[in-house]
């Protein structure tokens, strides 16, 4: 059946994207749309004592200026009676919910005008008077001594003896720092909101989950599900920043409500750093203890991260230490500490990527102490079953991935000694780093409709921020139906469709792909049912030995043992007078999975060139090998892995959010000063897959890929820089100043 797919690997969104006709959130043409622009606070901590909006209101074209003093009520908000002093989980910022300022650039007003230029200028005229308090943002100094958030998620965890590492003959004990990193998808977060009466609203929004956005709006404004319509046909990247509903979205809904007109709100690039989350600063301490032959006996992993004063954010920073290697004694501690910053959120690879930087760096350090190849150290501590739960893995082909990657980069051909290799005037280094991410399958509903013209439409309420969901789902449907892809389309980005998952946590293909597989199977069953009722086909049935054994495939129903005995889908539908036939199914997590642990795995091999005088690091070659189950769409899968590596290059070499702690204010919240990789930073990247199905997890055999593409990458680079220079860098990013220091 796979032969069918040859030359059909291009993205189904291709033409729309390259011609500019793909429509992103701010680009929907809604007649009479007004423009809304947010004004942010200029302090990080304090209370607004007065707002001066007169100048803004007088400015040409201004329709409304909304602040906490005149904002329409948000019924789902809890009444604000005092400053929040104890952050809680899942409590997002209540925009215009009171005079209290928790972070710099917190929205204090939204200005609505008839043009973008007028709204922007008027927003700069809004002034607030504050009672200032000293902001606390300096998480870089002794964060572990700062007050931490309590709760079950922050309990220390011990497997075996927490201090076993101390008894080992060979030890590594080091600290690793990861700065704030910011998602910065290319599309600015945007929304167009329009109310139809008091209790019905439509939004065109940038979201990784049309259903989750629908639910957030329902709960904020106490609306019925059928009265909240969310559209997101194209999403210009997210990497986690569009996983939740943010204050600017509620602000736009309020502005639309207040003016009675459609309102468009587009964040500025500066606001992308302060309003839609970021990967939090994290300081980690790793202790590893091993026998002289490289068997690790103990590991402790302590991580300290930041959150906002009003909301607890947590992620799986220490998870990787519990499961990546077969280590009998593991202690983990994870704490988050509130500062005057906005709430962080999951960013690609989330906590696992943060944790992997520390663990995989420490593993490399241990390998040099042991005088053992870093790859051999990993093989010596390979986990055959999940060390944390004791369960078998649903599938694990990490060793195969190691082999693929090592062969492709020539790992065994390098000189393993640090600072031993040169090319011209550059120091040469090879490094590796890997990781895992939970492979999961959630609940999803899809509907499949076959028309009399033979075209199949599959639909589900998901959105695609880049991986190519529609492309992959068309392939799943094509594979199951045995139909050519050009007869199939997948529709998404509309909350009125059957509910699909939020695109995050590397689960879309597994979750939604299962639903598409199941719904197309249900459709086939219906077609077989029609065949059984068919008058023209009944003679064939009567002659069959096993009349139940019918197959629906390739546009026809036929006898399993004799394909020439067939009837086309079209004829079956015509017979019944049907113009279309459809099936809707819900796919749920597999019961069988309860007995298994399921993860995707990756390993990154990197070759770097380090210029000894200027400290500039050039990534010369990258090989990523992944165990992501069955690869559904090879072309887009490869691109997704390459993209993760590019994100990893940013994380390793250049990304760092900087605040001036005197003001608690961002210093580099723009694309010139917050560096992300450009073309010239990126070499050829080879993405390789083991490509073996995990049929325990789901019927299509796919695990996830988005996260593992970046998890462990930064460590691979830092390890390669050590191999090149003999200098161990434990604080990201690896900028020239650190290399020459």
């Amino acid at each position, binding site marked *: 059946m796979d032969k069918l797919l040859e030359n059909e690997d291009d993205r189904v969104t291709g033409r729309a994207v*390259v011609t*500019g006709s793909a429509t992103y959130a*701010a680009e929907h043409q809604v007649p009479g749309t007004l423009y809304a622009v947010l004004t942010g606070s200029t302090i990080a901590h304090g209370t607004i004592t007065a707002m001066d909006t007169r100048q803004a209101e007088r400015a040409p074209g201004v329709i409304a200026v909304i602040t906490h003093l005149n904002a329409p009520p948000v019924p789902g908000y809890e009444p604000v009676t005092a400053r929040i002093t104890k952050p809680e989980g899942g409590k997002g910022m209540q925009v215009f919910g009171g005079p209290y300022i928790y972070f710099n650039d917190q929205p204090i007003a939204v200005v609505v005008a008839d043009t973008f*230029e007028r709204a922007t200028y008027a927003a700069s005229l809004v002034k607030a008077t504050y009672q200032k308090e000293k902001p606390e943002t300096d998480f870089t100094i002794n964060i572990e001594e700062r007050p931490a958030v309590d709760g079950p998620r922050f309990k220390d965890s011990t497997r075996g003896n927490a201090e076993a590492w101390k008894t080992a003959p060979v030890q590594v004990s080091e600290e690793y720092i990861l700065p704030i990193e910011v998602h910065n998808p*290319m599309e600015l977060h945007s929304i167009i909101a329009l109310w139809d009466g008091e209790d019905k609203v439509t939004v065109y929004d940038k979201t990784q989950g049309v259903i989750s956005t629908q639910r957030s709006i329902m709960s904020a404004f106490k609306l019925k599900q059928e009265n909240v319509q969310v559209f997101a046909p194209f999403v*210009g990247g997210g990497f986690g920043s569009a996983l939740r509903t943010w204050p600017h979205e509620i602000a736009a809904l309020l502005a639309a409500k207040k003016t009675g007109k459609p309102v468009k709100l587009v964040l500025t690039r500066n606001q992308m750093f302060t309003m839609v989350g970021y990967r939090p600063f994290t300081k980690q301490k790793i202790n590893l203890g091993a026998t002289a032959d490289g068997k690790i006996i103990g590991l402790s992993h302590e991580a300290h991260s930041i959150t906002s004063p009003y909301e607890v954010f947590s992620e799986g920073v220490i998870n990787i230490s519990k499961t990546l290697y077969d280590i009998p004694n593991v202690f983990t501690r994870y704490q988050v500490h509130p500062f005057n910053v906005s709430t962080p959120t999951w960013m690609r690879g989330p906590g696992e990527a943060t944790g992997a930087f520390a663990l995989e760096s420490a593993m490399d350090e241990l390998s040099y102490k042991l005088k053992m190849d870093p790859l051999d150290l990993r093989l010596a501590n390979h986990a055959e079953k999940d060390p944390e739960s004791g369960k078998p893995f649903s599938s694990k082909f990490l060793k195969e991935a190691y082999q693929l990657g090592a062969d492709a980069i020539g790992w065994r051909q390098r000189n393993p000694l640090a600072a031993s290799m040169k090319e011209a005037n550059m120091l040469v280094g090879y490094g590796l780093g890997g990781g895992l991410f939970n492979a999961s399958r959630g609940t999803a509903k899809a509907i499949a409709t076959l028309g009399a013209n033979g075209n199949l439409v599959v639909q589900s309420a998901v959105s695609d921020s880049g*991986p190519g969901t529609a492309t992959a789902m068309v392939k799943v449907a094509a594979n199951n139906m045995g139909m050519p892809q050009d007869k199939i389309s997948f529709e998404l980005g509309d909350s009125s469709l059957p509910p699909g998952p939020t695109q995050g946590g590397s689960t879309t293909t597994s979750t939604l792909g299962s639903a598409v597989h199941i719904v197309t199977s249900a459709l086939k069953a219906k077609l077989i049912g029609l065949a059984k009722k068919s008058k023209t086909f009944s003679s064939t049935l009567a002659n069959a030995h096993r009349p139940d054994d019918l197959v629906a495939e390739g546009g026809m129903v036929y006898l399993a043992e004799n394909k020439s005995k067939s009837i086309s889908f079209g004829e079956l539908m015509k017979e019944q007078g049907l113009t279309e036939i459809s099936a809707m199914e819900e796919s749920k997590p597999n019961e069988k999975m309860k007995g298994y642990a399921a993860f995707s795995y990756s390993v990154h091999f990197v070759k770097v060139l380090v210029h000894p005088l200027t400290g500039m690091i050039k990534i010369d070659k990258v090989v990523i090998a992944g165990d992501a189950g069955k690869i559904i769409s090879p072309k887009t899968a490869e691109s997704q892995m390459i993209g993760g590596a590019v994100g990893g290059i940013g994380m390793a070499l250049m990304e760092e959010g900087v605040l001036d702690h005197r003001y608690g204010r961002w210093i580099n919240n723009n694309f*010139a000063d917050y560096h992300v990789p450009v*073309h*010239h930073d990126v070499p050829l990247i080879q993405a390789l897959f083991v490509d073996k199905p995990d049929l325990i997890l789901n019927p299509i055999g796919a695990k996830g890929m988005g996260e593992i593409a970046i998890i462990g990458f930064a460590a691979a680079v830092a390890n390669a820089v050590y191999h090149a220079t003999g200098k161990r860098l434990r604080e990201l990013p690896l900028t020239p100043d650190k290399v020459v220091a």
Partner: protein
Amino acid sequence: MADNNFLPEKNDNFLCPSRRNFLKQSSLITALAMAPPALVKASEQGLDEKVASLFENQSLRLTVNGVQKELMVEPRVTLLDLLREKLHLTGTKKGCDFGQCGACTVHVDGHRVLSCLSLAVMQDGKQVITIEGLTDGENLHPMQQAFIEHDGFQCGYCTPGQVMSAVACVQEGHATTREEAREFMSGNICRCGAYPNIIDAIMSVKEKGGSHA
């Protein structure tokens, strides 16, 4: 490009009364015409400002994708916002609005520029080509086709800017090697990380004999 004698300096105030000049005159007029309480009220409501704003637009002639446009715009409107918000040509993207990402790249008189840092009024009389103008009817430009074939995008948001830049990069002769193309495409950021595929697309177009926009 012929310099059409737009707004000759010596009498520019007559041809296009500015908002500030209007304000100066209008406060006189209103002072004469209104009783003091009315004057105070008008000022409080910002009526002067609002009436004056009508005079802020300037005329602009522009050829966009071969179609001549006659427009009235505020001088502060950028070419990017003009395209997206007034002409509804949303293929040109806003990624940063400060010249730091390349998503807004268009061709003006045949050269790739950033429309977010280009004031629309300064483009008077010029030829603008956007991504929408790159296709020849139903036929994709070779660079557009190559982006699809080489999977030169994921989310697609930076893609129009990348394509416009890539077409120019080949035309300029800056795609002789992968290394050169990487340097001369570095003004176009792609956060999904489609870079190697984009360079593949560019090199394939280059090898097939370049591109013609």
